[in-house]
């Protein structure tokens, strides 16, 4: 779409031509995910996860639509419609339900890898700021959708998750409590909350699909980034999306779907919480209440605020810190001002990137673990480091770091060592190509 050498769409079949002249939809698809979209030739496997996220969104929508055909959104019927009707009575219901349950987890796994790939390779930098921000919007919508979906089986974790998460809103002074009651349609989660969560849980995936279209549209203006972070210069730097990346994405998607199938068939409840197989009881909270694993890092940040500071109490600090930890990512393109995109050429940035990964894993562990004095202190340290990374370390690194020299072009960076590979057996290659290879 964006490069002059992008192949124009030439319909081969008369029917395709007939449609294209009246509604250029085939042309749009060809330019977006067909041979008409030139992609940098050096993408590594970290670039496969965007397509995978799209695949899991599709799986969630398809399994979700059929599950909704059997689900009752009533406080008396919801638990049984999931655990009796769908899991035991509906033909293949157990498979669809487990596929949907684990599909959510896999959707988050591939999305997290996709986000961290963007963080490492500087995919958020100009001219792709809007691609990054639309991605964050998708991520926020995913969190809302996943939360409301988890409420639907109306088990203990569903109920108390709804109670605690809507309780976040009550942290805000004055408007908080009325806002919480308005969101729930009652004083505690009940029929009104369940029905509206079902309605929104059905709606939001389609909103996500819409923002995905914008995300890809914005991406295709400058074209995909790549592991060197160097801009595409000419046709030598790119390959058509189809058949090259459709083939690569295709086999890798099959490999990931295999893992997904293994979990769905052999450990379907591994990523869930057993307490959600107890029907909701508004009068007793489970002893160890935690959200789903994909919220653990944020839950840890929420729990780490245990002290009043200035005129704001601990509860509001927790909620502000938790929302702030995601909102600050919207400003990342302006926080990290280094002109070099890829972490591969930023020796200092690279080390702090991996520290951030470790930090988020620690936050995840703390968020899922019971509160002990050690875990609480560890969580506070890790939460403080998270903000330190984005608000202090990243601006300083981008100001003082000396990046490594960048390759002249994408094709030069990937075509080094060709001479060595093609040299006759036992004969050393030309020294020049070795030097290039070691510099890389």
């Amino acid at each position, binding site marked *: 779409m964006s490069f002059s050498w992008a192949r124009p769409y030439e319909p081969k079949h008369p029917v395709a031509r007939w449609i294209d002249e009246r509604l250029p939809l085939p042309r749009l698809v060809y330019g977006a995910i067909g041979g008409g979209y030139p992609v940098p030739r050096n993408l590594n496997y970290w670039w496969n996860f965007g397509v995978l996220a799209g695949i899991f969104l599709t799986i969630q929508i398809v399994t979700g639509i059929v599950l909704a055909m059997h689900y009752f959104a009533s406080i008396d019927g919801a638990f049984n419609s999931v655990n009796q009707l769908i899991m035991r009575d509906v033909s293949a219901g157990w498979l669809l339900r487990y596929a949907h349950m684990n599909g959510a987890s896999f959707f988050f796994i591939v999305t997290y890898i996709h986000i961290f790939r963007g963080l490492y390779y500087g995919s958020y930098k100009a001219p792709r700021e809007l691609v990054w921000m639309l991605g964050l919007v998708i991520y926020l919508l995913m969190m809302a959708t996943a939360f409301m979906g988890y409420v639907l089986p109306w088990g203990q974790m569903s109920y*108390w998750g709804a109670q605690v998460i809507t309780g976040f809103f009550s942290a805000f002074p004055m408007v908080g409590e009325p806002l919480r009651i308005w969101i729930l*349609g009652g*004083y*505690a989660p*009940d029929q009104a909350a369940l029905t509206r969560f079902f309605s929104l849980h059905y709606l939001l995936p389609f909103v996500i699909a819409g923002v995905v279209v914008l995300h890809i549209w914005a991406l295709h203006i400058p074209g995909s980034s790549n592991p060197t972070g160097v801009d595409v210069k000419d046709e030598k730097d790119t390959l058509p999306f189809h058949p090259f990346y459709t083939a690569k994405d295709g086999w890798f998607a099959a490999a990931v779907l295999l893992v997904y199938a293994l979990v769905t068939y052999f450990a379907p409840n591994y990523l869930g919480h057993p307490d959600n197989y107890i029907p909701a009881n508004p*009068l007793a*909270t489970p002893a160890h209440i935690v959200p789903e694993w994909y919220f653990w890092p944020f839950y840890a940040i929420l*729990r780490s605020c*245990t002290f009043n500071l200035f005129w704001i109490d*601990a509860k509001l600090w927790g909620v502000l810190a938790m929302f702030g930890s995601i909102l600050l990512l919207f400003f990342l393109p302006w926080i990290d001002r280094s002109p070099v995109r890829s972490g591969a050429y930023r020796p200092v940035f690279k080390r702090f990137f991996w520290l951030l990964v470790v930090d988020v894993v620690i936050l995840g562990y703390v968020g899922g673990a019971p509160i002990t004095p050690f875990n609480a202190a560890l969580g506070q340290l890790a939460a403080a480091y998270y903000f330190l990374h984005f608000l202090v370390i990243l601006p300083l690194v981008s100001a003082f770091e000396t990046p490594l020299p960048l390759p002249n072009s994408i094709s030069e960076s990937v075509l080094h060592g060709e001479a060595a590979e093609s040299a006759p057996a036992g004969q050393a290659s030309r020294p020049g190509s070795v030097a290039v290879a070691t510099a890389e």
Partner: protein
Amino acid sequence: MATKASSAEGSQDTAVTGGEGEDGLRRRDYLKVGAVAFAGVGGLATLGPLLVQMSPSADVLALATTEVDISKIQPGQGIKVSWRKQPVFIRYLTPKEIQEANAVPLGELRDPETLAQRTKPGKENWLITLGVCTHLGCVPLGIGEGENKGKYGGYFCPCHGSQYDTAARIRQGPAPKNLFVPEYKFTGPKTVQIG
């Protein structure tokens, strides 16, 4: 609402339209602004029902009072009842618990209130509060027989570790407020109406 360009264009054929005032506005502009503003206000007004439908409905509000028989509760015991779908703790305090609550200096409290302020006159042994932690809404432990009452002998919230004393006042942990005391009145010697 006319742009500079269109009003400049309009000024060339003032003789034709004839409606332009001294400030470059035409009569048509008033019609445009008026019509769009009217539609805009109407559009905003239609948001009203879409927003208020989410408030608690009449059947939810109708559950606003609950009558409870407290004759079977012995000193030191408590019960949990449901009011507006939320748990309410009704606790018969022992003299020791009352004494403990009254011994705490108000200055030490995060949310300073005396036991007398949190109970009805002459009924200081009946502590009635919502069983909803003021942090994020979990049900604290300590009302049932054998449950963990926490360090201060009142309630302990297992979710995030808030500790309440024998007057259900917050003493330690992330919760900002004391357990909420709902509206209630004694309708008989051994019955109480909550709400």
